[in-house]
């Protein structure tokens, strides 16, 4: 559900930067989204298309770079990809848990304009 308000935020950011750059049209918006954020790509594009009608961002494509989750083991410091539905345990030393080093990204990286 909250993809609607998120899409509005993406559109606001893109329009502000496009205006500053003197763009006539936004062709694409490049996003970086971590897998741990739980946002759904198709849903964001759907709302973005709806919200961007009659703005310079109409018909812009959202390009989403997904960042996989990475956890740094609190035992041995090794980095690993946490499994989806099991305990987060380190494949090297077996210790449980760690610090999230990637996967929470959620930003507009750049826009493509003309």
């Amino acid at each position: 559900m909250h993809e609607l308000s998120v899409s509005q935020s993406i559109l606001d950011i893109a329009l502000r930067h496009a205006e500053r750059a003197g763009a006539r049209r936004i062709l694409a918006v490049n996003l970086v989204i971590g897998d741990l954020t739980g946002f759904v790509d198709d849903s964001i594009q759907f709302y973005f298309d709806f919200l961007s009608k009659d703005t310079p961002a109409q018909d812009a494509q959202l390009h989403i770079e997904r960042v996989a989750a990475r956890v740094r083991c609190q035992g041995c410091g090794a980095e690993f990809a946490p499994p989806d539905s099991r305990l987060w345990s380190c494949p090297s030393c077996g210790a449980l848990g760690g610090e999230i080093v990637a996967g929470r990204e959620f930003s507009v990286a750049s826009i493509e304009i003309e």
Partner: protein
Amino acid sequence: MPTEVPVVEKILSANDRIALENRRLLDGQGIVAVNVMASPGAGKTSVILRTIEALRGRLRVGVIEGDLASRVDADKVAETGTPVVQINTGGGCHLDAPQVQSALARLPLAEIDLLFIENVGNLVCPTGWDLGEHVKVVVSSVPEGHDKPIKYPGIFVVADAFVLNKTDLAPYLDFDAEIFRTALRALNAEAPLFEMSCKTGQGIEAWADWLLAPAGA
């Protein structure tokens, strides 16, 4: 000819800015704010009501209630004489910083030491939105099962404290407390866990004492 313009801006930066304003306002009033997150029915409101009771005479509590609809929870809190504001999000699945900002404007902040912000019942969406709170608490309950931390890791990772409610039901259910505790620790080694029953009152005191520490500081 298309050109690429770097932006590098957090998508939720507008929310984060207002969250920062909320935090500054709260800090200025000496209020500690606790964002209470849980699935629907875990007992968020019951935990808040029990805590108000336990802290009576020691800390002045205020409450912001977030629900899709109704004033059911706010009415229960108001009966205790505690200042409360209800936010109805319509279909919204989480509270955001602007909603909390408008609720703060309707609370007698000078009369509050500890502010509970009861988020919408949901283990996914509230995680991403900073409200300006100082402490995030996740309330789980025995009937939900012991596998919630494994299935919804995102919210357990960001918590500063955990409550496990409805422990009085443990004899009747297959909740495996060891698996629950191990899964919590795997995601979050630091945050303390308070096991309690809002029905019997068992465990409330330890939780209330923990709240007194940061709130009194």
